[in-house]
Structures are given as C-alpha cells and as structure tokens.
C-alpha cells in the first residue's frame, strides 16, 4: 500500500483526487454513492456573491469523447453556501475548496473575505468560466488582468489561494507566472475549452447559450500539454485536470507536473471513477516499487 497523500499549499489531502467544481454540486448527491472521504477533496460548485439561476436549458450536449456545457454558474450565493452547505461538508473528512466567481474584482474580494472567516480549507479563484456574460473568463485571459485580480483577492484572502486557469489563451505559462507573482499558492488547470455545435436540421446551436465549455477525454491531451508547460514555468503546485478518466490518465497528468488532480466529466458515466482511479494508482505505485504518489510529479522525460 503506497502513500497516496499529497500536500498542496500546506493543505494535506488523503489522496490526490479532488472532485472538479461544477460536476459535484456541494457533494451531497455523490455522498449517496460512497463516503466523500474517498476523495482527497471537493472543489464545490462555483459560488457567486448573490444567487444565480444560470442559463436556460439545454445546458449540455454530448460531443465525441466529451461534453459541452453552459450551466451559467447556477448557485444559491455565498451566504447560503456558508450557512447551509459548508458545515455539512466539513464533517465529511475531506478537503473542502470553495470555488468563487464574480462580476467584478470587488465581488471576488468580498467573497474571499467572507470565506476566510469560515473553516473552508482553500479558495479557488474561478477566472475561467466561459459561460457567463460578465466576469468569469474576462479576468483570466491576460497576464495583467490575472495579476491584478490575484493580487487584490490575495489581500482579502487568508486561506490558501488556488487560481483556476483558462485554456482559452495563447500562452498559459505566462498567465500562470502572473498568478504566481501576484501571490497565488497554487494553480488549477484546465477549465473547459470554449466550443460550439450546431444542429444542422434546425440550424440552432445545440446548447441554448450558443457556446459552451468542452470537457471530457477529448480535452485530455490539451490539458497534459498545458500542465507540462506551466510546470516548467512556475514553482507553485499545479492541480491538474481536463478529461482524466482512468488511473492511467491520472499517472500521466502527475508525470506532466501535477501535484494533485481534479476529475469531473467522467463522474457522469461512472460515479465511482474516483474510487477506481485511486485503486489503480495504488496498484501502479506498488507494482513499480514507488513509495509515494508525490514521486510521480513532473517525472516525464521529454525528448
């Protein structure tokens, strides 16, 4: 039995698998499949300062080896999360990460302040949501904007701060460097790639928001490439995600440079995927005589 625990920005995770924001709600539903302590952590559904109803349906469509979604950050607001969901989450014996999104930098700061006063374990700055009209990804696509928002939120945030990066940029390594320079404790990547499909019979986009975020196995090679590039550019830990579906994918993402992992889309076809991936990881480590999963991080040997 190898050691699967990892440490990200001073926070201990029992294993490297974290449920990705937006695929897992606030944990209650998947907690009806298995104890949430099976996961290293949970990144909660993105929360905003005030309640949001999200986009009209359809919000999802299947694509080859993936899905497009545009939920539009439906959530009850940060205060309801703190009062009704966080106390329950904190009893589940897993790391709780609050994912926050705002319309303005001030909103991000206000939420960071409110959450810093709670016992949430970490805060993940969502500056990469492609599915909302204002805010979201606009804060995450230039180095100056990323540096500005990270620095400002940092001043209001006493929790370890993760900046979640958008892949919809030309040079993700320089964006990651900006986040690091402005005080991010870690980066998580990648959020979804903006995509679109059209129903050729109705000539309508297949989701109501016209465009959506592409996730699932289809984006995995892009995610591996980006994690590898960022790992070569920063010294803060990387939480790797984007289409991880099997334990082999998990090993690959760790080798690319990730310290921990988030998984999302695969849960929709297999709710037990995190349990199976952890089992596979453990087997791989044992078979290769590796004591700790941390020994895999960044061990790719590039040509």
């Amino acid at each position, binding site marked *: 039995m190898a050691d699967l625990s990892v440490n990200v920005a001073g926070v201990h995770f029992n294993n490297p698998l974290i449920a990705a924001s937006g695929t897992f709600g606030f944990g209650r*539903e998947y907690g009806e*499949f298995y104890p949430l302590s099976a996961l290293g952590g949970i990144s909660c559904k993105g929360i905003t300062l005030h309640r949001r109803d999200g986009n009209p349906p359809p919000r999802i469509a299947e694509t080859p080896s993936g899905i497009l979604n545009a939920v539009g950050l439906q959530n009850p607001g940060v205060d309801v999360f703190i009062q009704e969901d966080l106390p329950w989450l904190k009893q589940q014996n897993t790391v709780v990460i609050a994912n926050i999104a705002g319309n303005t930098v001030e909103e991000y700061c206000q939420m960071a302040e409110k959450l810093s006063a709670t016992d949430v374990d970490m805060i993940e700055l969502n500056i990469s949501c492609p599915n909302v009209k204002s805010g979201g990804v606009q804060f995450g696509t230039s180095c100056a904007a990323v540096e500005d928002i990270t620095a400002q939120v940092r001043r209001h945030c006493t929790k370890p701060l993760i900046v979640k990066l958008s892949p919809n940029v030309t040079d993700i390594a320089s964006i990651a460097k900006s986040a690091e320079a402005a005080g991010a404790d870690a980066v998580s990547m990648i959020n979804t790639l903006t995509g679109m499909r059209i129903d050729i019979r109705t000539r309508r986009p297949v989701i109501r928001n016209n465009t959506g975020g592409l996730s699932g196995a289809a984006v995995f090679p892009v995610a591996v490439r980006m994690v590898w590039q960022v790992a070569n550019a920063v010294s803060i830990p990387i939480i790797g995600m984007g289409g991880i579906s099997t334990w082999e994918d998990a090993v690959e993402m760790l080798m690319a440079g990730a310290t921990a992992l988030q998984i999302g889309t695969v849960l929709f076809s297999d709710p037990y995927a995190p349990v199976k991936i952890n089992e596979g990881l453990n087997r791989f480590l044992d078979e290769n005589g590796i004591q700790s999963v941390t020994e895999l991080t960044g061990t790719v040997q590039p040509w």
Partner: protein
Amino acid sequence: MKYDVRQLPLLSNKEIAQGIYDMRLEYKQDDLPVQCGQFAHVYVPGKSLRRPISVCDASGGVLRLVYQVKGEGTKIMSQMQPGGTVDVLVPLGHGFSVDSTKRYCLIGGGIGVPPMLYTARQCENPLIITGFRSESLVILQDDLKACGETLLCTDDGSAGEKGFVTDLLRAHIAEVDEVCACGPTPMLKAIAAVCKEFNKPCQISLEERMGCGVGACLVCAVKVRKNGEEIMQHVCKNGPVFNAEEVVF
C-alpha cells in the same frame, strides 16, 4: 447509500414499433423499490453521458425500458444483445404520487407512453389515454388494456380516433379526480391548461438533456414557481414528475 450502479442481465431487447425498442432486464426489487415515473440512467459503452430512460415496468422481477432510437447512444443501446449485462443507475428521480382513493386519467404521448404502464399498475381502474403520430408508432396497447380503460388516438387517424389526447381528455375529464401525463412539452402544456380549466390536479413528467442524473451538475434545469417565486429546479432530482401548476413553461 441511496444510489447504486447495477449490472443487470439483459433478457431481451426487441423492436416493438418503428424505431422503438423494449429492453427487459433482470431486476429484483430491493430496499430501493422503483416508484412509478422514476427513471433509469443507462451507461452506453464509449459515450460520455448516460441515457435517461423512464421505467416502463418494474414488476415480476423484470425492469422494462421502452425507448426510441434517436441518436448514437440509443442506437448502441438497441444493438445490445441478450446474455450480457447493462450498467444501470436506478431508480432515480421523483415519480408520480398515486393516491389509491382517487381515479386517475393517465396520458401518454408518443415515447411518453411507457412510464404510464408502471403508473397504471399502481392505480385503481385508471382511464388511460395514449396518443401517437400514426399507427406505425403505436405501442403497449395490450399491456395498458390489462390495467384499465384505454382510449387511443393518432394525429392522422390511422389508429384509434383522429385527434389529440387533449380532445379525449376534455370528453372524459369529469370521470376522473386527477391527471398524470408524460409526452412532448406542447402536449403537456395543453394538458395542464385543460386541467386548470376543469380544476383537476395534474402531474407531468418532463424531459431535459441530462448529465449526472442525481442533481449535482445542474444541467437539466426547469423553471418552477414555488411560493410565488420563480426558481430553477432539476428534472433528474426534483422531477421528472412535477406539479403542472408549478411549472413555468
């Protein structure tokens, strides 16, 4: 634990009308009995999303899923062979609430007909109205006849009466206490309007493209009015069955 993924032996999987298949799986009712109107989330090898299919029947040790081949996923389902197993997440969702003291009118339109069979089994002498586009799509008539009084209509008159289920509902609504319906949204909207006019309670089963199936990913949104306020709920968890009066069409 409330949810479990089951590997159910596939007993048969036959085409019963044009493009419509009847999948029968070996299924023992256990501590999580299937309620009428609930659905099964079926894993399709090679696909990123499961396919939500309403439960047509769950009696006699058999889980019956009657589905229409609409795209790649249901096509793969239709090619599954008896002898293997199917990976199913069941039972899911909030089904129809049936009160044994009431007489129900159960209405199904097209591929919305299957869940009305298991619902009919829970009702005392229901009036069952089914509607289809044409004769080639008519399904489950013999099964339904065994559960109550049935009325059939088609858009083109090729089977049963020519017309819509709402015409038959208007003619017979005085005979029932409550209406339960499943089918295309315009049909459900029209049924809800008739029930409102005659002041009869009405439950409708909605459809929306779905992700997780358990209420975590929030994609299958439906707008409902609760206590005067419009809020977003989800077909997979709060539904698929909703009180028609609360749905904001």
